[in-house]
């Protein structure tokens, strides 16, 4: 298991999922790809299909409609995979906790490995979060 996970950490392919977010976090995730914060240096690529993905980047407080689609997509990701919740809404639904359309927080629906706080988290914060996640999983193997 060690070798596999270590290789996974060196080239995590990312798949981004917006479950009802205000697209601030989505823009910040895309900003990581632009020349100033290029994340390809860590081997992070945006995966084309859910089957190629290793890391699920989830933003937004998942409203009812997105929740079951989120479960379906989570089952399709080949394990071992990591789930990263980006932004306040993904962590604890942030402002929208009493909303009638957001019943459950993210970690009640799928297990989450890393939380990146901030609303929206700056690209530096997202990269720092990714590096911390890599160290944590690296240390665990």
């Amino acid at each position, binding site marked *: 298991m060690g070798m596999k996970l270590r290789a996974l950490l060196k080239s995590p392919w990312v798949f981004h999922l917006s479950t009802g977010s205000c697209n601030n976090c989505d823009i910040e995730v895309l900003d990581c790809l632009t020349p100033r914060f290029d994340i390809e240096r860590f081997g992070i690529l945006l995966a084309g299909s859910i089957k190629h993905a290793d890391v699920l980047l989830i933003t937004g407080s998942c409203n009812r*409609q997105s929740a079951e689609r989120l479960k379906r997509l989570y089952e399709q990701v080949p394990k071992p995979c990591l789930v990263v919740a980006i932004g306040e809404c993904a962590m604890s639904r942030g402002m929208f906790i009493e909303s*009638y359309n957001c*019943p*459950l927080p993210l970690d009640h629906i799928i297990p989450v490995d890393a939380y990146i706080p901030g609303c929206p988290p700056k690209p530096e914060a997202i990269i720092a979060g990714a590096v911390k996640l890599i160290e944590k999983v690296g240390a665990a193997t």
Partner: protein
Amino acid sequence: MTREQALQEIRARFDGVILSMFDKSPSRVYIEIKPEALVPAANYIFWELGARFNIATGVDTRTHIEILYHFIIEEINLLVSLRVKLDRDRPVIDSLTPSFEAANWVEREIHELLGVEFKNHPDMRRLLLPENWPEGVYPLRRDYQEWDKQAVRDRGV
């Protein structure tokens, strides 16, 4: 066409059906009219006065359901709001969509969130709420209770 002329025109044309006219400030006018006179009044303001349909706002005051139709006449910076009061148990009004397309979505939204029924609206479908949302539960009503038992509301801290 100045502000006074416009108000004069509206008062003259719809004198019978206007219940009250509140001249709040240079750019705000609230006119309360009878529900059945909504379509002619809205048509007149939208097409003759060249106003733009801003939005309709549904409000659930405990005694009745109120809908405000906001029109803005940009040339003279005047925002005319037509107020219509409907009774709370069976709110029914005829739809403005046949006269101008802009009202289509907002009427669907008010129907979904407040339960107001719009007569001869072309395609009254759900707009915002998910498929598994129970019928007859209107979130923006004052007496809305949480119906979903598994919903978790505390932050778990």
